[in-house]
């Protein structure tokens, strides 16, 4: 059976090393993360060892090796947001969700990511939840916000 990964690999017919990163990026875009299966297949296609590909993929922040959680929280930690107190917001989110930066919680509910600038510098700290932006977030708003998000799971 042809999977989505095979379809993506087929597009990169030349199989050159330069195509490795765009290929991995596209696989991640279609399936959300890089599975072991995907890395092995890419290795076969490009004639590269699996360790090399894994070594490359772990070097870059963009590649993820676990599926994303149902709720994807991004916290901006650019200088502007930092000056406005994003660190306290981030700490509270870590406390409330139990996810550490760059990781997904075990139950697969939350993925937390820290980004260096989202471009909303006058509105900091900026937090995005499933691509919806919250601006001028105060640390004390976090517990309420996370409780509401958790409520959605319980009634799903």
């Amino acid at each position: 059976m042809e999977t989505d990964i095979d379809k993506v690999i087929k597009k990169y017919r030349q199989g050159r090393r330069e195509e490795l990163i765009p290929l991995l990026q596209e696989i991640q875009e279609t399936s959300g993360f890089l599975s072991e299966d995907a890395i092995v297949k890419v290795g076969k296609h490009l004639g590269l060892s699996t360790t090399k590909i894994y070594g490359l993929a772990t070097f870059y922040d963009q590649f993820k090796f676990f599926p994303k959680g149902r709720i994807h929280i991004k916290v901006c930690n650019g200088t502007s947001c930092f000056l406005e107190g994003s660190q306290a917001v981030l700490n509270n989110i870590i406390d409330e969700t139990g996810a550490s930066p760059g990781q997904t919680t075990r139950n697969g509910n939350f993925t937390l990511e820290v980004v260096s600038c989202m471009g909303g510098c006058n509105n900091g700290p900026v937090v995005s939840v499933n691509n919806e932006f919250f601006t001028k977030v105060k640390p004390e708003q976090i517990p309420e916000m996370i409780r509401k998000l958790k409520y959605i799971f319980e009634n799903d």
Partner: protein
Amino acid sequence: MEDLKNFLISRVLLLESDTLPQETEKSLQYLRRDKTDVPLIFISSGTSSMIAGSEKTYFSAKTYLEESDITADIIRVGCTGPFNYEPSVAVQMPGKNRLFFRNITEEKIEPLLNGVFHNDINKDDLLGQHGMKGFEMWPGVPFIGDLPFFAFQKRIVLGNCGCYDPESIEEYIARGGYRSYVKTIRHYTYEEVCDIVEKSGLRGRSGGGYPTGLKWKQALNTASGTRYLICNAKESDPGSFCNITIIESDPHRLIEGMAIASYAIGSSSAIVYLRSGSDYAHSRIQKAIDSAREYGLLGHNIYSSGYNLDISVRIEPGAFVCGEETALINSLEGKRGMPQLKPPYPTTYGLSGKPTVINNVETLMNVPIIMQNGPEWFRSHGTDNSPGTKIFAVAGKARLTGVVEVEMGTSLKTIIDDIADGIKDGKEFKAVQIGGASGTYITHDNLDVPVDYELMKERDAGMGAGGFIVIDESTCMVDLVRFYMEFIRNESCGKCIPCREGTGRMLEILEGIIRKPANEDSGTTLERFKGVMQLETIAAVMKDASLCGLGQTAPNPFISALKNFREEFEEHIFDRKCRANVCRGLRTFSIDVDKCTGCTACAARCPVNAIYGTRLQPFFIVEDKCIGCGICFDICKFSAIVVK
């Protein structure tokens, strides 16, 4: 559509003379939206506007027009510059000057449009009007060009930002776009283009200030069948957003600049290396490339000049160090983005071993302007050593933040006091940091320094790529230095030891300075002090021995902060005090018994249960348990919590 395309190509792009005939000019007026028969509504739509909610404004404007049965065009334009005014909306009634409004959220758009259509404008959200020749003025409305934010700027590169629909190539051509590119490939040789740019004195805008024309010549003079041009749009300094805003607002000029630069070095393939996570900029630039291809501006044998060019977009996979030239090339070749020893420089041995020119977005944006107006015109702006303008992304504690463009030679004071309108909340100015995560701090004494590569270097300040962070008294410098060091530590690629180990050690020591004193009589105090003594040595070694710019400049914020704010460091180390009350570990809280009402709000929220007391009686905080998080301080409604 096809007619319009043929018209624009034959009557505008391929026209030999510099001035357009009158009838062509007349029909272009409509395309440029200088003239209009229906009301035009311009809604800004960059990343910053979207975060502020511009998409919602767009849809409520649409519903309003449908419901009230009014014919009007809604156009999504890029950001004009000031981020505080997002989402910004401009309205142009037929025959009248364009009006600009600020902070138009979804609920405000309906009354606003209603007012404008009935000639009764709401002055609260009004910014001003944009004066255009032969149009009726709005009485009693100030001109937007007179606002200090715009009056002190010189908008050459940003000239198109927020004025046209970035997804419409027709509008860009009607505004005079792509004409200098077509003229270049039809009438100039490679060397001539390099000469013009060299004569103009354009220097790399990414901070180094290397003459652009010279760089091009080096690549051109290296014998090779293939050459590459790369536009470095990997801008991932925390708090820097110039490139993304430019690409979102004016992608076509970047394409034109890249096309001219590619021609000048005889390259037939160019790459935009875009930062990851900027989906909006990606879709805009991809659309711009597609429509340029449709117009035959990219492709094979462009307008029978015998020149071929294709531009592709590559998304950087998320590593700060990939902004470095050699690391960038490695990442494009499908390897780990680690820098290499220079020389050989990319201009002689770059991507796939071929000569490669890597230019910054802002540098390339200047190229079409130079080709259009000539090198002498360009030289008449700015200073002798640094002609032209410079774009900064003003952020931090300034009252107005956003993307600004100033003529070289403008003092930093003008940018902070006049353009950005000073410091917000009436606080005191402390320093400004130029150049992102590895920039130095400029204090009050040096604010008169003009924006100029050499003059800034004399005062220990780098030009940087455009980061401009304004810092006020409420910021702790030690904490800020720690923040940058943590960022660099995370982003260090790990290839060379001074950078990999040095950043880690420096971060450890800095964290030691701001950590809560555990048991002062054990050896930790001595250890901490030893570390502090060594910080300067580590910084010096990193500066000398690191392989690439990331490691070499990583200690800059620390060195500069130590020089300018030594007393703050000493307070942290000796007195264990943070004057800005930012460092968690060094602050303790206590409760003012006279003010405390015993509402229990703080005790309920304390994460470590350090607050005790009986209901309706004053509470108290156990100092040993307190971690200094400040939740109680934020939550107390009676300001009974005091910081010590």
